[in-house]
């Protein structure tokens, strides 16, 4: 079937139109008035990404104007929550700019709640402010549309293209139009990857329709990782997956409950259990147990142990708080503006928090870079203060020249959330504009051979299905191809059983991880036999490809780090303790596309000293 090829040339290509991508698009235009800025998104930037349904809080705001917090405070907070291991240079950089981002959001029209007494932003907690954010994404998309030369919706980017003249430099990307199947070749001087992290790489708790109710958006298909990995960029902290304690089944958020409504948890018998586990946690992680606030993973750990001990389900005590009508409204609107599914679950089961203390549960693990977790690409830091080991050129540039990242794509920058991701997009954009302007006559070259080879690869699943379909009468079972859902379910089962999922109580060891790699290798081989009946399934096929590669990276990192740094996220049963002697460091990996080999190394951690 002949498919049209569309060439799109630009100065800066932003891959992904979520919070990070919209920030990058906006800022690129500010600094590059005459540059061609293109944003490409596999869905529609109006509602794409993790903020599709809105948010009820902005979880990263300093409040410097009111002396509420300083950037250093946020770095210490993130460092503490991640058990010491964050890129403090990158974190400080986001924290010092994020207030400006939030103020622009307000100016653009985001309704931010105000404290009636002081007129300041209504704080939910030390770092969080409350918003009426149902239209957070459309607002930010409007800003991006006013900045971009062109926005391409419904184009799934499958691969980055490399410069054929110089090694280790990016030159653009290829992808396909999910609607009409056209092949797209993007040629750019700089590429900013701001795609989605990894949901659906571990088996979720619900496996029917309920599979869709993941905590992190199901369309986050790890493109943020697979695209740089394939380009040879170094990745960091990919073992640092996050497990979330949230309301049962709907995974509705608990932040406003803990911080604003002042609710708390209890086991099934009405007992406070966290203190009970303190000593055993101290045996695992030492002095970290005394840090305030208690790191997220350690709170998870206490809950997991309590449930294993048979005293679940754990409940959120809401009956007192919900008697206050204002708090009751917040409790419900918290879901409606952020995770509508939780309101649906409670309505369906007649759960009114005034009468029932709702159940909590821990989710399956996710790998992403903007929450209480920081997996992603290893990036260069800010020029004004980053140590030499963290600085090799432009801010937020990866170890591949011309390749920048923002949002879930970048590793080491925990607790940035939506505002921080948008801010990181802005940081990467300014650096990318500088990069482009300083190379006005030096354009990377895309090789026709490379993109023609990729074209065949991109559409292969359609061809596999078309031909293989002739062998069977009907149905989904074929000996020669697998559907994307089959591959996804196999991946989720492998990761669940071997690489730390819920069925193993988040525990693994070297023999399990090694076996996991063997099974992943066979799955990778089978990916060449993916069969896609139509373009929608072709998109699913490429989402799976990205997920499998990211999962392989996660497994390699999990094997490499021989300690249990974040009990409550995952446990290495063969190295059950935190080991600051050997492992107070970042893990880095680099994938060789030709040999399929992973090179692992350690990188030092720099801390801001008082």
């Amino acid at each position, binding site marked *: 079937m002949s498919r049209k090829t569309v060439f799109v040339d630009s100065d800066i290509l932003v891959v992904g139109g979520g919070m990070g991508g919209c920030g990058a698009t906006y800022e690129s*235009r*500010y*600094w590059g*008035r005459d540059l061609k800025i293109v944003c490409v998104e596999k*869905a*529609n930037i*109006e*509602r794409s990404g993790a903020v*599709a*349904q809105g948010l009820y809080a902005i979880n990263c705001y300093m409040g*410097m*104007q009111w002396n509420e917090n300083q*950037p250093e405070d946020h770095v210490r907070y993130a460092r503490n929550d991640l058990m010491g291991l964050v890129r*403090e*240079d990158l974190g400080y950089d986001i924290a*010092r*700019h994020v*207030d*400006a981002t939030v*103020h*622009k959001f307000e100016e653009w*029209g*985001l*309704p931010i709640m105000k404290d009636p007494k002081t007129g300041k932003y209504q704080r939910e907690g030390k770092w969080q402010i409350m918003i*009426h954010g149902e239209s957070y994404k459309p607002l930010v998309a*409007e800003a991006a549309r*006013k*900045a971009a030369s062109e926005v391409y919706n419904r184009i799934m980017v499958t691969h980055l293209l490399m410069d054929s003249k110089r090694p280790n430099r990016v030159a653009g990307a290829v992808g396909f139009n999910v609607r009409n199947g056209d092949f797209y070749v993007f040629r750019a001087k700089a590429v900013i990857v701001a795609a989605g992290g990894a949901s659906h790489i571990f088996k979720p708790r*619900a496996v*029917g*329709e*309920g599979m*869709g*109710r993941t905590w992190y*958006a*199901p*369309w986050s298909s790890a493109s943020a990782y697979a695209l740089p990995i394939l380009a040879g960029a170094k990745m960091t902290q990919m073992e640092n997956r996050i497990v979330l304690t949230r309301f049962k*089944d709907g995974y509705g958020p608990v932040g406003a409950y803990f911080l604003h409504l002042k609710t708390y948890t209890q086991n099934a018998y009405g007992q406070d259990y966290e203190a009970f586990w303190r000593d055993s946690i101290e045996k695992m992680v030492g002095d970290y147990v005394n840090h305030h606030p208690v790191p997220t993973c350690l709170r998870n750990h206490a809950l997991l142990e309590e449930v294993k001990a048979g005293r679940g389900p754990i409940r959120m005590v809401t009956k007192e708080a919900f008697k206050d009508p204002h708090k009751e409204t917040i409790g*419900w609107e918290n879901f*409606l503006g952020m995770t*509508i*599914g939780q*309101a*649906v*679950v*409670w*309505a*369906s*089961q*007649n759960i*009114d928090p005034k009468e029932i203390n709702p159940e909590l549960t821990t989710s399956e693990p996710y790998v992403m870079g903007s929450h209480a977790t920081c997996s992603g690409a290893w990036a260069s830091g800010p020029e*004004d*203060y*980053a140590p030499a080991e963290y600085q090799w050129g432009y801010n937020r540039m990866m170890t591949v020249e011309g390749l920048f990242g923002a949002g879930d794509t970048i590793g080491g920058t925990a607790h940035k959330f939506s505002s921080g991701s948008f801010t990181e997009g*802005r940081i990467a954009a300014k650096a990318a504009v500088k990069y482009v302007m300083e190379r006005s006559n030096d354009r990377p070259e895309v090789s026709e051979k490379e993109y023609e080879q990729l074209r065949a690869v991109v559409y292969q699943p359609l061809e596999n299905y078309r031909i293989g379909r002739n062998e069977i009468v009907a149905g989904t079972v074929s000996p020669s191809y697998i559907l994307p859902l089959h591959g996804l379910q196999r991946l989720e089962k492998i990761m669940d059983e071997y690489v730390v999922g819920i069925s193993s109580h988040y525990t693994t060891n070297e023999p399990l991880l090694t076996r996991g790699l063997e099974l992943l290798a066979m799955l990778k081989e089978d990916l060449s036999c993916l069969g896609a009946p139509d373009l*929608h399934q072709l998109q699913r096929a490429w989402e799976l490809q990205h997920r499998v590669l990211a999962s392989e990276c996660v497994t390699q990192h999990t094997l490499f780090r021989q300690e249990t740094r974040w009990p409550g996220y995952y446990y290495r049963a063969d190295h059950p303790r935190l080991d600051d002697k050997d492992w107070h460091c970042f893990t880095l990996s680099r994938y060789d596309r030709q040999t399929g080999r992973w090179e692992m190394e350690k990188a030092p*951690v*720099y*801390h*801001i000293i008082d």
Partner: protein
Amino acid sequence: MPTFVYMTSCDGCGYCVDICPSDIMHIDTTYRRAYNVEPNMCWECYSCVKACPQHAIDCRGYADFAPLGHSVRVLREEEKATVSWRIKFRDGREKNFVSPIRTTPWGSIKGPSEYAPPSAAAMSSQELAHEPEALKVDVLPTLARSRLKKGLV
């Protein structure tokens, strides 16, 4: 909570197909109306529900864990910049909520090109667009390189 489309309300306009972040709202080949083709990839984000001009899309909680008889419906009114919710429990109890969604008119954001172009000094500084004014402090904070120390502290 996967979505479903009411047969007699859908007029086949395609707004849901266009907006769905998961690419799961598609057109049925018998009726040329919309339906959810992959409920197990539906996040219940309600983007399609809100986008439908005919209010033809509704949600039913995931069959894995949501008993029948509930209803969570939304009315997003751009002209008023409000979103209204009506929640009905399985046992008939009802809760209603209204929230603002925007404080400025749609389309009113000032594009970055409408600002004065940045100076060369601004370009070479660490400041992002609209800084330091947008920070609402005098100066963009920075660190001395000596403040960062390698290793365990």
